[in-house]
């Protein structure tokens, strides 16, 4: 079926007939702004195809215009059998008709049946499947009824191309088996396949673990028991051996004999020690005798030597003293010579200075005179300069020029004012001169009196004449100029302009005088008078030393005296050095002598201390001591040769003692050890460790078997669950294969490699897999959802077409959230599908859909244009 034209009448806003015509195969686009009736068009189609003409339900009544009337819809469709015109009218005079080429084919219920057949008999039909109402951007929107109808339509379609979903996926039997399997598995394991807490699996594991631990503990205890048994056996044997009487006797005898041997050895060692002491004593004695003898001999030799040296030193000391005395005299003579030459030198120096001064005084006398005069003249000039400076008062030239300017301005101001002011000129009759007065001043005849303000003129004998000049005349400039002039004069300290001029001339004269005096002073004393006075003071005055020597003679005498003085000083220094050397020699000789005398004294004292034994007696003592030493040594050697080995005796004794001690310790250790072991063995065997261990081992074996059984059971259940799930998924995929096949190329226009999984209940995609991500459809963005919804519908349309039930796809603003990039690809999808389908797109997005292409439709009303048929 393909729709070719749609006509509406009395439908909502279309009170006049409106028509969409020339609907082509493939893609058709009706692009109109909002409120132009696109949704009405959609509803009209819905009504025509699905609302019986007798219906008065709210869908139908909602079609009626405000003005009332019977809604009418006429659709021209083309089927394999030809072109038919379907028309319906509701509410008033309801009717349904099917015409073919103007011939009535069916009407009323027959027409409804015809239409139903045309749609393939199913109730929801293409509406739910492939018609998208405005605003229904996802797959599951709409009323409950619409949803059910859509589901039914999908189920019908899917079943028509495949098998029953129930048959494919196992349905409730599969669910029951899976639920049962999971329930049983749930007893043992958690969802992740781990043992469930408090479940039998976990319990079996715990039991095995606990038994293993217990078994280990018991094994350890049993081992301890066995060890204790072995230890006890060993301890008993050892104790028996140690406590055997013959062994104890042997140990005691060995100890006794070792002790005796050791005692003997120790005695001998003490004797040897005594002999050693004796040898040492004899050695000491011999050494001491030898020392005494040697000391005596040395002292005697020292005494002789020191005495000889003293004699020599005495001679040398005497000689040195004599030389010293001689030199001291020589030095004193040199001192005297120095004193004398120094006096001579001082005299010569004085004479020379005197001579030089006299010479300078003679040379400076003229200059002194000249300077003195210059000073007097300079003083005169300075005085004149000071007097002139005192006279230098009165205005200077600039001030005078300013005063003159101001006076001129004043005069000008008066003249100006008088020229513009009201003027009164008295012309007296003869003899009446001066009868008119301004105040007390009479007006001169023929003389203009300018009046700058109201003036009262007294006319004698007549009265007063008041003259009031115009207000504009008085500008105060005269007063201002007068005031400026007065201020300037006051500043200059003069009465008037003439006085100012006189004062200025006096000032100029004084300044001239001052400058002249200054010039004189400067020429006389460029650096000031004080400089002249200082120069004068620096010239020595010629005093009374008129007998001063001749400078040259004085200078020669000075040189001579200086040479003599230098020579004398040198001689004195040489003498001093020599004296010092000789003094050192003398004191050294004295010191040597003193020390040698001490030596002699010490030797004599030593001899006195020795009590003066003879050298022979001492030598005899020494020989006797040597003999005694030899004897002691011989005795010591003999004792030493016969000594037994003390260390060996001690070692033997130690060993015997230690053996005995060890035996005693061992017995002391073994007895309590045995008691402990007895106690331990008693306890352990009383506790029936082995019996218990045997039991635990058996329990462990059983528990392990139980655990293995449970693990097998869990493995079986997991394997079964997996098999069931895998099979169900596989069959589900197989069931959805036809639609998936249709959808795949469309989907890949938007997302290459993307896939959809299908809900078994809803028969709709429920998850989108793309880029390794698995997202439920309902969390995707609005745009993505509407795109998927549209693509799915296109795919369903293809399936419908494939099953011989071609129906137009009608999309009423199905893409509202889609961005520009995606919309391009959606357009591609539409074009791709439009090849063998009829797609009618209603949209208000005129600009966006301009790029869609396809056949453009117009909704024309009779008021706008001709309604063609």
């Amino acid at each position, binding site marked *: 079926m393909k729709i070719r034209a749609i006509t509406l009448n009395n439908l909502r806003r279309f009170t006049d007939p409106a028509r969409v015509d020339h609907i082509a195969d493939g893609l058709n686009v009706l692009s109109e702004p909002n409120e132009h009736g696109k949704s009405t068009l959609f509803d009209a189609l819905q009504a025509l195809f699905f609302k019986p003409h007798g219906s008065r339900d709210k869908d139908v009544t909602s079609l009626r215009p405000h003005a009332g009337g019977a809604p009418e819809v006429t659709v021209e469709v083309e089927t394999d059998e030809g072109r038919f015109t379907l028309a319906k009218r509701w509410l008033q005079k309801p009717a349904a008709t099917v015409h073919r080429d103007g011939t009535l084919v069916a009407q009323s219920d027959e027409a409804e049946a015809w239409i139903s057949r045309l749609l393939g008999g199913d109730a929801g039909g293409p509406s739910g499947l492939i018609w998208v109402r405005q605003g229904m951007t996802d797959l599951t929107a709409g009323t409950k009824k619409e949803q059910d109808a859509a589901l039914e339509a999908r189920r019908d379609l899917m079943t028509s191309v495949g098998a029953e979903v129930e048959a*494919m996926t196992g349905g409730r*039997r599969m669910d029951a088996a899976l639920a049962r399997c999971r329930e049983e598995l749930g007893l043992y394991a958690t969802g992740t396949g781990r043992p469930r807490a408090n479940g039998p699996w976990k319990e079996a594991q715990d039991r095995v673990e606990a038994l293993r631990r217990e078994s280990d503990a018991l094994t350890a205890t049993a081992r301890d028991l066995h060890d204790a048994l072995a230890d006890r056996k060993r301890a008993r044997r050892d104790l028996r051996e140690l406590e055997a009487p013959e062994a104890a006797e042997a140990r005691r005898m060995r100890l006794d004999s070792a002790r005796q041997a050791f005692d003997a050895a120790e005695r001998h060692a003490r004797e040897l020690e005594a002999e050693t002491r004796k040898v040492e004593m004899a050695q000491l004695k011999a050494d001491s005798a030898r020392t005494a003898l040697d000391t005596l001999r040395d002292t005697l030799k020292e005494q002789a030597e020191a005495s000889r040296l003293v004699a020599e030193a005495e001679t040398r000391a005497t000689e040195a003293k004599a030389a010293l005395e001689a030199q001291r005299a020589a030095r004193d003579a040199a001192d005297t010579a120095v004193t004398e030459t120094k006096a001579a030198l001082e005299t010569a120096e004085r004479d020379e200075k005197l001579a030089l001064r006299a010479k300078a005084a003679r040379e400076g006398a003229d200059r002194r005179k000249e300077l003195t005069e210059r000073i007097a003249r300079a003083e005169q000039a300075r005085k004149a300069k000071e007097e002139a400076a005192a006279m230098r008062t009165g205005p200077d030239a600039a001030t005078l020029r300013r005063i003159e300017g101001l006076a001129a301005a004043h005069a000008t101001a008066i003249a100006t004012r008088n020229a513009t002011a009201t003027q009164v000129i008295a012309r007296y009759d003869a003899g009446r001169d001066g009868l008119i007065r301004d105040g007390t001043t009479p007006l001169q005849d023929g003389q203009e009196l300018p009046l700058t303000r109201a003036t009262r003129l007294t006319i004698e004998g007549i009265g007063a004449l008041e003259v009031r000049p115009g207000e504009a005349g008085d500008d105060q400039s005269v007063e201002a100029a007068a005031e400026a002039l007065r201020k300037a004069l006051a500043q200059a300290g003069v009465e008037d302009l003439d006085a100012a001029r006189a004062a200025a001339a006096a000032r100029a004269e004084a300044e001239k005088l001052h400058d002249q005096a200054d010039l004189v002073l400067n020429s006389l004393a460029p650096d000031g008078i004080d400089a002249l006075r200082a120069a004068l003071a620096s010239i020595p005055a010629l005093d009374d030393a008129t007998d001063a020597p001749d400078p040259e003679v004085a200078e020669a005498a000075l040189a001579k005296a200086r040479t003599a003085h230098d020579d004398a000083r040198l001689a004195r220094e040489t003498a001093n050095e020599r004296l010092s050397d000789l003094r050192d020699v003398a004191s050294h000789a004295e010191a040597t002598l003193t020390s040698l005398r001490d030596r002699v004294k010490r030797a004599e004292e030593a001899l006195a201390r020795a009590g003066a034994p003879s050298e022979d007696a001492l030598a005899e003592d020494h020989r006797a001591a040597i003999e005694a030493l030899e004897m002691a040594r011989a005795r010591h050697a003999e004792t030493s040769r016969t000594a037994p080995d003390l260390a060996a005796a001690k070692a033997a004794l130690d060993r015997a003692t230690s053996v005995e001690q060890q035996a005693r310790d061992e017995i002391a250790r073994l007895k309590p050890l045995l008691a402990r072991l007895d106690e331990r063995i008693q306890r352990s065997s009383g*506790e029936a460790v082995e*019996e218990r261990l*045997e039991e635990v081992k*058996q329990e462990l074996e059983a528990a392990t078997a139980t655990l293995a059984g449970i693990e097998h059971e869990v493995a079986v259940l997991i394997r079964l669950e997996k*098999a*069931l799930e895998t*099979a169900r998924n596989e*069959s589900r995929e197989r069931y959805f294969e036809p639609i998936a096949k249709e959808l795949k190329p469309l989907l890949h226009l938007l997302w290459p490699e993307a896939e959809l999984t299908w809900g078994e209940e809803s028969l709709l995609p429920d998850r989108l897999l793309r880029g390794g991500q698995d997202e439920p459809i309902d969390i995707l963005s609005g745009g993505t959802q509407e795109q998927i919804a549209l693509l799915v519908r296109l795919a369903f349309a293809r399936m419908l077409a494939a099953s011989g039930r071609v129906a137009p796809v009608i999309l009423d603003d199905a893409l509202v959230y889609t961005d520009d990039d995606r919309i391009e690809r959606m357009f591609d999808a539409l074009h791709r599908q439009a090849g063998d389908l009829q797609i009618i797109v209603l949209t208000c997005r005129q600009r966006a859909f301009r790029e869609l292409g396809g056949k453009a439709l117009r909704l024309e009303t009779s008021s706008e244009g001709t309604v063609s048929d």
Partner: protein
Amino acid sequence: MAFRFIHASDLHIGRKFANIPQPQDGNIRGRLMEARHGAIGRLATAARDTGAQHVLLAGDTFDTATPSPTVIRQALAAMGDAAEVTWWILPGNHDNLRDAEPLWETIARDAPGNVMALTEAVPRDMDPTAVLLPCPVAFRAGASDPTEPLVTMASNEGQLRIGLAHGGVTDFTESGAAIAPDRDRSARLDYLALGDWHGRMAVSERVHYCGAPEQDRFKHGRRGVCLAVAIDGPGAPPQVEEVETGAFLWSEIDLPLHPRQDAAAALTAILPETGRRDVLLRVVASGRAGLPDMVDLQRAADRAAPEFAHFELRTSGLGTHYETADLDEIDRGGALRLAANALMQDAEADALSETDRDVAADALARLYSYVREAAQ
């Protein structure tokens, strides 16, 4: 007049049987323990019945080296009660001399007068006509033939030489600790009483294992016995008679199955009719069975099990035979059938490990049972 005695061994008194599953309200373990203690009394009865004055216990009288005082005292008391019999107790590997030293000390100290502990390898006169040559076990695991000293043990002329030893005659571990099977000849024995094997076995005319008087495993398939031995004189062949002493029967029965056989009926057919309370039974199914048969077999086993002292059905050796009809019962098509096919494929895949195959097979059986339960 012939010399008569009872030859027994491996009483393993004190064994706990913790490996036998016990229901919450059951006491099978206690019963099994009690049966071991009761063996003393049954041996005494056997001695009386056969006119024997001696009971030779060839080792492992006690299960462990350190039985609890209760176990020891009650056993000794039971022997003391049979006052007309002399008990000759030989240390075995379980109650060997080293580990069980306290045990043997206790026995030496506290045993009644008619109980003789044979803790040393020296000849003991049983009466003027017979000498007992004991070979006590010193360690849990020995490294030499424990009967070697028998060769050099002296006896008076004309006395019966009766050897008593504990150990195997087959050297399983190649440790050299096996008893020479011809020891009776090398040691000039009239009889060699051996212990250690829990099953009855005659090694030769004069060398015998009596087996445990009370069985403790499924291996031997009969109740325990002791041997009543009579020897007319030195050199005369011993007359050995088995006397049944076992209270419990430990039995393992094979159940070979094939497809299209009523497995439940086959199981019922092999079960003993009476005395089930004293029977510990293990049924080992083998062959192949279909999925429904498996379910039926398990149900039949579950029905029968509570009547026995212990019952277990082992199906690890039973292969599953898959029939299209059985799989159709799961589903003729669709996902359930897909799952069943996948599991069957895995169960029969040679590439998978045996564990994985078993898991897959059991998973399929489980699926089958779910579907069948849901259908019923």
